[in-house]
């Protein structure tokens, strides 16, 4: 199986098919109620309540609807979806089937990250088995009149296609670029039809919740962030790998579990997340505090934080789709600024300009990429000013 260290996951203990069975016994509204009651929020990072999303799609008046599984896992430091798809793809498809039943979709698409092409055969194999077991197709799961099929489509390596509307554009054969929102995919999604795009993990949890009940899930975590979450932990710690923790866990607790207590900072939420310094390690990982799609990157005491910022900005500078001005041009300017800082050639004044630019990018960019790409840089400037200023040959203002 996967070479990545993986802590025991709840998914291993879920009996295959039980969730779908339970769902098909309910009516559509009943399924949505159950998911809503669990408090499950999108596990891709944005944290939109899953039940609400399904309900909106279910309410949309259109005979054609789609379920899309976003497996374009491209956030730096995120690899938990790869592990889930390797070990628990069946559960993911079960979640998609439950969603299809709830919203009235006949077709599902799993959009698989280009770099995960090696997983395609494995995933197709599982789909084949599900079809053979009549869990897909006409009268899926033995439910009369319920028809659902899933198809795997490959991405081609663009980070932006993990953004749900860019993903849909890509599925339609267009250049992968985010759409204007509103309208949202739940109303106007794939080919203009109502579409529910959810993360791999979200579908797996949905199936788990239908199997174990919303009460069980709701009891775990905090009020606003229910349930368990799968984390991809990497960086300067003793045991990087995939972990499962309840939401609401503090960064310190998490670091203890992975052997990274000497960290000076932790990047929570991948490149587009925020960089939390050691003094704030008591903060909770939860939607109401430090939100994350599951990526935790640990920075040990020896890490050069400016180098960290450079690394992230290089990534965004490369991956911006180039559509909107703030993101297309802004990432490059910030990266340039980091190079200036490295050479000690960035004045305090210009650094302030760049931070203001970062704010503009957060506010005025078209999609989540540009709105979050300056986060790492801004939090490093804020939390490690002494480390990044006054480099060799510093030109002080």
């Amino acid at each position: 199986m996967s070479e990545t260290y993986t802590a025991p996951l709840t998914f291993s203990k879920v009996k295959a098919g039980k969730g779908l069975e339970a769902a098909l016994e309910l009516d559509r509204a009943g399924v949505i109620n159950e998911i809503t009651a669990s408090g499950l929020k999108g596990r891709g990072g944005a944290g939109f309540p899953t039940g609400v999303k399904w309900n909106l799609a279910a309410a949309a008046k259109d005979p054609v609807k789609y379920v899309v599984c976003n497996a374009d896992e491209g956030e730096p430091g995120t690899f938990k979806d790869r592990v889930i798809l390797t070990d628990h793809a069946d559960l993911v498809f079960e979640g998609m089937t439950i969603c299809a039943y709830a919203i009235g979709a006949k077709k599902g698409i799993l959009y698989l990250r280009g770099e995960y092409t090696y997983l395609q055969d494995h995933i197709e194999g599982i789909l084949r088995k599900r079809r053979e077991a009549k869990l897909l197709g006409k009268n899926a799961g033995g439910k009369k009149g319920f028809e659902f099929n899933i198809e795997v489509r490959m991405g081609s390596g663009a980070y932006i296609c993990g953004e749900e509307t860019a993903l849909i554009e890509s599925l339609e054969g267009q250049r992968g670029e985010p759409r204007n929102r509103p309208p949202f995919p739940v109303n106007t999604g794939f080919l203009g039809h109502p579409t529910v795009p959810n993360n791999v993990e979200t579908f797996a949890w949905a199936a788990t919740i239908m199997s174990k009940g919303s009460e069980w899930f709701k009891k775990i975590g905090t009020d606003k962030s229910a349930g368990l979450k799968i984390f991809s932990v990497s960086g300067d710690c003793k045991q990087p790998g995939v972990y499962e923790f309840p939401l609401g866990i503090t960064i310190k607790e998490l670091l203890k579990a992975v052997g990274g207590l000497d960290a000076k900072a932790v990047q929570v939420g991948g490149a587009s997340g925020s960089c939390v310094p050691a003094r704030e390690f008591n903060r909770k990982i939860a939607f109401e505090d430090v939100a994350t799609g599951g990526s935790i990157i640990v920075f040990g005491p020896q890490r050069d934080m400016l180098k960290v910022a450079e690394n992230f900005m290089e990534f965004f500078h490369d991956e911006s789709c180039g559509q909107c001005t703030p993101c297309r041009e802004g990432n490059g300017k910030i990266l340039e600024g980091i190079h200036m800082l490295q050479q000690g050639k960035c004045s305090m004044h210009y650094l302030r300009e760049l931070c203001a630019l970062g704010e503009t990018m957060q506010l005025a960019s078209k999609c989540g990429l540009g709105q979050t790409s300056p986060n790492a840089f801004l939090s490093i400037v804020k939390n490690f000013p002494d480390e990044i200023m006054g480099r060799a040959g510093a030109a002080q203002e």
Partner: protein
Amino acid sequence: MTDKNIKLKEESRAPVSSSVQKFAAPQNEKAIGATITVTIDDKQIKVPMGTTILEAAKKLNIHIPTLCYHEDLCVAGVCRICAVEVEGQRTLQASCAYPITAPITVRTHTRKVRQARRHILDLLLSKHYGECYACARNNNCELQALAKEYGVDFFRFGHPDKPRFEVDRSSYSVVRDMDKCILCRRCVRTCIDLQEVGVLEVAGRSEASKVETFVDKPLGEVVCINCGQCINRCPTGALRANDPADEVWAAIDDPAKHVVIQTAPSPRAGIGECFGLEPGQPLTFQMNTALRLCGFDKVFDTNFSADLTIIEEGTELLIRLYKALVQKDKSVALPQFTSCSPGWVKFLEHFYPEYIPNLSSAKSPQQMFGAVIKTYYAKLMKIDPKDIVTVALMPCSAKKFECNRPEMCDSGFKDIDYGLTTRELAQMISEAGINLPAMEKSDFDDPFGTATGSGVIFGATGGVMEAALRTVIELVTGKKVENFFDHADIIPVRGMEGIRYAEIPIKEVGPVPDLVKHVVKDWKWLKGATLKVAVAHGTANAKRVMENIKAGGKLSECHFIEFMACPGGCIGGGGQPIPTSPAIRAARARAIYAEDTAYEVRKSHENPAIERIYNEFLKEGPCSHLAHKLLHTHYTPRGKYIV
């Protein structure tokens, strides 16, 4: 009798440029919940559900800056300059792309908004290479105007001192200077969504993204139809027409050269806009004076050759109909398509080459005039045609390509030497220190001086069809067209609907007039027939018509179809003043129809100059041997690979 607004299936639509989504507004504006109240900068207004913030603000007279937004195009929401703050939203919203579906409160110039707009300008300027005073769009540039509006007084994020791209001058018509491109993608949306040609697309990501042709080929080597609609919608000087003004000045300055200019109808309806006039104020006769002041030896009216086109093309149609209906000749291609729009001609050559036999072999008025000037006129004036320089003032960028077609040398010389756009002539006039609107009026020069209203309306969509019908109806019935249509206004073919269809029943026929006696003996075969015609403007509509014909639909039964490559017809051509919008084009069209009404002679066949040329020069009549040699042409089936 007429079915004006024909709706065709949308299935033939090309892939959209990106994320063209429209909020489905309720059909009935009076239904409950069909309207909603929005508060913008403390002012309230009730708007239909789905109205964008930008549209609502316009209604309130609140100005929100825009760059990627264009009235003619689908929404992109990419430049972000129109960002506004919507209460309760964490991020700023692009007002052009935000449909109002809840009673929101909007603020258009908060600190965050001002900062964002300034940053966006600073970022665009950090990539915008070039100096304003050395730019075709100086003082008519939306980026420059915004820099002023937002008080840009330094380059916060730098300014390039070196070009990154080579200027693409490979096209006869359109020059691309990507160093001035701000990636608003209006040209892409124009080419893909508005015109459905699809030459331009965005390639590459992030800072490296740029507007490209297929595999970045030069524009002259791709399937561009030269319509220049992208130029009209470019906010900066990244796209401009290939300007021959230097060569024209050189010809004027050369005493050995006899420089004549013909002016098409549309420029006169638009040129005032270049001199600060409101759209729709024609300066026909002031322009004649200005042109003489500039140094042109003769100023002719393209309307003369438009009338000539009507006679030739109309005769061609009658011949085709005769062959098809009387001689039952199955090889005759019908419907006959007009050929005066060079953008449309190239569109057909590329995308529907199998329909080339349907194209009228008649040259466009511009090219007919060139051939006539360098033969008939040269002889009349006893000037060696090699010393004549023919300049054509056109609303069109594709005319530059047309006059450079290798086959357009039937006079033994290049029939038309230079195609000048309305914008370029305005520039020459201002260079000569002439205040055009203040000029006294003067007439066109003889021997082509007298024009008709039919020639004028060539400028608006439906005009060629109307002109042709006026002549054909009179030739066939022997009665005044006014007997059938009030004031000879053939309203069914007028308008701005994308595709229009009309049926003209021929209930009575008269004697065959002398002009076409060599073609048909009598009209009996036309009695009781119904002439079916259609009009389409914009190549997206042309495509719809072609697909309908291909599928054997209603329009395949037509006898004659007018096609114009540009939305609105020539008045919306790629050489016309910038900006353009549906309202501006409508105003120009009104000016053209007003001019038509003012003419004493309004039918091509009644033009005395036309009668004269057929008596003195083209003695064997329309579509005769000499007419064919000089006034007709052939086409190239280009397909998608031969350019």
